């Protein structure tokens, strides 16, 4: 997991290393200051030597300036390295998501992916910055300060060693316990937010059933629960600073006692004692920082895991080597196809489908929800792979085509279709980047979208809001069809794409298809008999099995399911 993320440092390796180098040198310089201060006191003041005072003063000043510039540089490079890593991670995830197959996409929710790309990346960014700034620096401070102390006076420094061991143990225990509690808290916290979300979204239901009090009670219990857990977790953390203070104070007291004796005994100078006091702070602070950084980094591990999950997700559909780059015609074969969304599952969605569709035919598909209509057509453009059998387009197994070529030639208008924010023209050109205005207009004429587009004030330059919220359902569907037509595909699949279009327009779309793109194989999925009855042949799907495949007239005679649907849909009209 960490390896996956580390790979994305790439061009920012230099910045990361520079951060560490600068931060380390900064530590060495900072550590020198108390040492020089000792010199100033002992040689300067006690020796009553003005020159020494000036000498040490200037030296310390230079070091402080050096430390300042190093700190400045380290901060700058750390910022560049961490934000660069974050940008790389977002880029890597996003480009990787683009290679996802449909079944990969199904696995993640949109909200989940958005969180991974934003919040989780920010967490990792902060943790990484912490890592290169603090996690190298703090141990270094610890080591340097400790060795300096040892150099000054080995016996007295034993005080530090004991204090450090004590503090490490205490902080370790605190962190361990706190982490355990925090791991319990976060899922509960998510639950709380989810219950708020439910109430915001379903407020009409809450109010209709007069359940405000009930929801209040429910929420109160959840809030109380969170309170209890958080208090538990944080009261452990409350030991942090007293423990730290305890160690510092003990060090000071012991140093004072032992130090006084040593100075009087002549084995220590006053200046050296003050340096030791300074190092006390340095050592303990660095431990404290380290423990904080440790918590932050552990907390970001969850984010890191979620990110690497996306990056390591293997797209289960890839173009084969030596892929075939042309699709000759729109002929389709299904050879005993069995398919399920979880490969090898006991209950396949499609069972033993065996079909042959001629190039240029118009095929209707009808059947109830869950009868796997969409699943059937999604196999043609290889949005999913079959479990058993094979699907052929123009006599070639779809698995042998280059994916991009195949999907250009097999154009699907999805059931859950979306328009993107941008002008109508921009949206249409998704089908063909280089389409001229005339070509776009032509496609819209075929899809019967021209009439309403021309009524818009800005015509083809009308701006479509995100999700196409400023056009009606029927208009949206027609735009989506036009967009698919611009690809000039050999096979055109409409997956329930005219459900919101009125029957008259629906019929005229079909007529124009028959007239203007006769060579294109057209597959039309619909809930409405009227949308499919003009088709050359109609597939009746039932529970993943082909129940009938014939013309409208024949099916009416021979197929029970078809008759049934026909009856329920036509009865009303015949009454009048």
């Amino acid at each position, binding site marked *: 997991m960490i390896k996956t993320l580390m790979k994305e440092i790439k061009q920012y390796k230099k910045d990361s290393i520079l951060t560490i180098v600068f931060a380390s040198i900064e530590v060495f310089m900072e550590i020198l*200051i108390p040492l020089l201060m000792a010199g*100033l006191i002992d040689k300067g003041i*006690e020796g009553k030597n003005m020159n020494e*005072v000036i000498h*040490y*003063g200037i030296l310390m000043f230079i070091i402080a*300036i050096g*430390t300042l510039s190093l*700190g400045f540089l380290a901060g700058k490079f*750390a*910022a560049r390295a961490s*934000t660069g890593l*974050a*940008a790389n991670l*977002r*880029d890597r995830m*996003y480009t990787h998501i*683009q290679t996802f197959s449909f079944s990969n*996409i199904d696995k993640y929710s949109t909200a989940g*992916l*958005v969180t991974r790309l*934003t919040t989780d990346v*920010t967490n990792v960014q902060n943790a990484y910055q912490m890592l290169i700034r603090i996690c190298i620096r703090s141990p270094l401070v610890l080591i340097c300060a400790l060795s300096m102390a040892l150099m000054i006076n080995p016996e007295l420094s034993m005080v530090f060693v004991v204090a450090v061991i004590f503090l490490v143990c205490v902080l370790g225990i605190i962190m361990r316990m706190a982490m355990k509690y925090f791991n319990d808290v976060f899922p509960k916290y998510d639950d709380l*937010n989810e219950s*708020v979300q*439910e109430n*915001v979204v*379903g*407020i*009409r239901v*809450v*109010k*209709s059933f007069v359940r*405000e009090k009930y929801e*209040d009670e429910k929420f109160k219990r959840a*809030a109380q629960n969170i*309170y209890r857990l958080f208090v538990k977790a944080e009261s452990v953390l*409350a030991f942090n600073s*007293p423990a730290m203070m305890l160690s510092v104070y003990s060090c000071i007291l012991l140093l004072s006692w032992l130090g006084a004796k040593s100075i*009087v005994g002549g084995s220590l100078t*006053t200046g050296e004692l003050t340096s030791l006091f300074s190092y006390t*702070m340095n050592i303990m602070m660095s431990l404290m920082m380290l423990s904080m950084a440790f918590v932050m980094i552990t907390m970001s591990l969850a984010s890191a895991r979620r990110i690497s999950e996306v990056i390591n997700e293997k797209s289960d559909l890839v173009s084969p080597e030596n892929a075939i780059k042309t699709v000759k015609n729109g002929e389709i074969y299904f050879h005993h196809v069995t398919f399920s969304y979880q490969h090898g599952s006991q209950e396949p969605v499609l069972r033993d489908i065996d079909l042959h569709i001629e190039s240029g035919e118009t095929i209707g598909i009808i059947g*109830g*929800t869950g009868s796997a209509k969409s699943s059937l057509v999604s196999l043609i*453009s290889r*949005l999913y792979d079959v479990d058993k059998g094979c699907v052929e387009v123009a006599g070639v197994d779809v698995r042998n085509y280059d994916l991009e070529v195949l*999907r*250009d030639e097999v154009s699907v208008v*999805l059931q859950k279709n979306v328009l*993107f924010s941008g002008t109508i023209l921009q949206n249409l050109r998704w089908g063909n980047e280089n389409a001229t205005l005339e070509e776009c207009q032509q496609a819209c004429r075929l899809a019967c979208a021209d009439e309403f587009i021309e009524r818009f004030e800005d015509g083809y330059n009308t701006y479509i809001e995100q999700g196409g919220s400023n056009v*009606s*359902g029927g208009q949206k569907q027609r735009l989506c069809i036009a967009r698919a037509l611009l690809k000039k595909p050999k096979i055109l699949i409409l997956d*329930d794409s005219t*459900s919101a279009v*009125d*029957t*008259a327009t629906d019929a005229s779309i079909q007529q124009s298809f028959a007239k203007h793109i006769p060579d294109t194989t057209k597959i039309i999925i619909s*809930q409405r008999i*009227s949308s499919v009855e003009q088709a050359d042949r109609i597939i009746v799907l039932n529970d993943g099995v082909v129940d009938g495949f014939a013309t409208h007239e024949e099916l009416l005679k021979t197929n029970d399911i078809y008759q049934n649907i026909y009856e329920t849909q036509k009865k009303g*009209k015949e009454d009048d």
Partner: protein
Amino acid sequence: MKRLLKMLWKEYKIHLIIVFLCIIANAYATVQGTLFMQTLIDHYITPLIGQPNPDFTGLFYALIRVAAFFMMGVICAYAFSRIMVNVTQGFLRHLRIELFEHMESLPIAYFDRTSHGDVMSVYTNDIDTLRQLISQSIPQLTSSCITIITVFISMLTLSITLTCISLVMLCVMVYVSRKIGSLSGHYFVKQQNDIGRVNGYIEEMISGQKVVKVFNHEEKAIEDFRNINNDLRNSAYKANKFANILMPVTIQIGNFSYIICAVIGAILSISGVVGITIGTLVSFLTLNKNFNQPIGQISQQINSVAMAQAGAKRIFDLLDQKSEDDQGIVTLCRVEYVDGQMQETLKRTGHWAWRHPRTNGEIELVEMKGDIRLENVDFGYFDDRMVLHDLNVFAAPGEKIAFVGATGAGKTTITNLINRFYDIQKGTITYDGIDIKLIKKDDLRKSLGVVLQDTHLFTGTIMDNIRYGRLDATDEECIAAASLANADTFIKHLPDGYQTMLSGDGSNLSQGQRQLLAIARAAVANPPVLILDEATSSIDSRTEKLVQDGMDKLMQGRTTLVIAHRLSTIKNSDCIMVLELGRIIESGNHQSLMKEKKKYYQLYTGAIEMD
């Protein structure tokens, strides 16, 4: 911000006073410790140097005294951190509950105008900023200020000259850190905007990811993404850069102050102009460090204080929204018939009545039958834009009234009026002859069953969700309701049956199944009047039939208002109202409307789009 602090103060007066005292004690202990250095060097070390038999007993007692101070410091530090945990979490709990309860009391109009994301972010982001503020920033700032003051006073007692120098350096530090702070703040705002843009882009593209795929649009999508990703990297870099250098800069300015004081102090000490001993100097230098440190801490907290301020503003915005007001006086009560006379009772008789207190003090009982009338109703979501004009609808008990019309004709709006989600501008709506404005909203809504277009379910078992209709319903009653709604069959096929957990708004169920549950939920409530807003999304004919059948059974014996999105389902209505641009343009039953061959006929034959 002020209001927030006031709230905090009101809630935790004693806690806060104790915390404040602890902070002072703690700061005092620290200062005592530092001042002890002077005593140590000047009284217990320097005089003893060179003595043949140094006497350390004085030092020993002095150390004990200091140790006592230190102990007090440690205990106070713990007490204050521990108390703050309770204060912070307790206050957040209080705030959350208050927010939630207030939110539940807000009118529907608020939810219609405010995006769900905005409301959610109050509970998550804004509350989080407050946690940061209360648990860290406020104590940190308080202790920093107290430290600065106590240290400053102690410094004055040691040496006025050196104190002045420290003060000058402090001003430099404050000035520089403010400059850097505002720069970094500027870029943090920019970073926030860029995150918003990236967020929006990803959200749009990923929710359309399947379309991206079928159009081979991946490369273009990546290219666009790279551009905004780069912008974000740049602003994040700058924001972080300034935030990162703030720390070293303040620390080093602190160091400069330290060095300057040391050199000048040394010069003064050697020249003997003012009496500065080594002990004084050493103590002063430590104090100098303690004096500068808080400034660094304060500048670190500035950002989070600013963020909390914005968060608090949004929280109070929500808390200041006006609650739904209710001046209703008429309530529901159970009644029993004694000698053909209605009498109030607590028994579960299955009979209900409106309890209507009259101005003369008498109480009138009106049988609840389910007679709904809308007379000359005008309504608009905004006062200057009417959506419904002069609406007249009469629904006698047990009748089924249907509304049809194209998108935007105002069908769904009608559902908002009868249960008073919105109040009408003109005209009257009566329920069993009582103006609904007189009826208490809770009782009015209890007497109306609503099945909405989009089904919303809650986290919990299927049983819980059905019981939502009536909390005291037994399991048997819930199952009976489910079988009435035709939901029983699919529920039984679920692995855990009625105990199956639903999560994420019932996302593990199909649209049709969710609808069946919504019908069961309304059936358990058993109200005399139903408002059905049919589902728009396409469900297959078989499930649709089940849903329809369930609805039909539910409608039996109840007054029903149906908002129809599909015409096949409402042919048997007693009256069908065709709406256009907020007016009723045709009404009558199916046969008569078909004969007229006007709008309804066109809709029915599919000549005009419904949605």
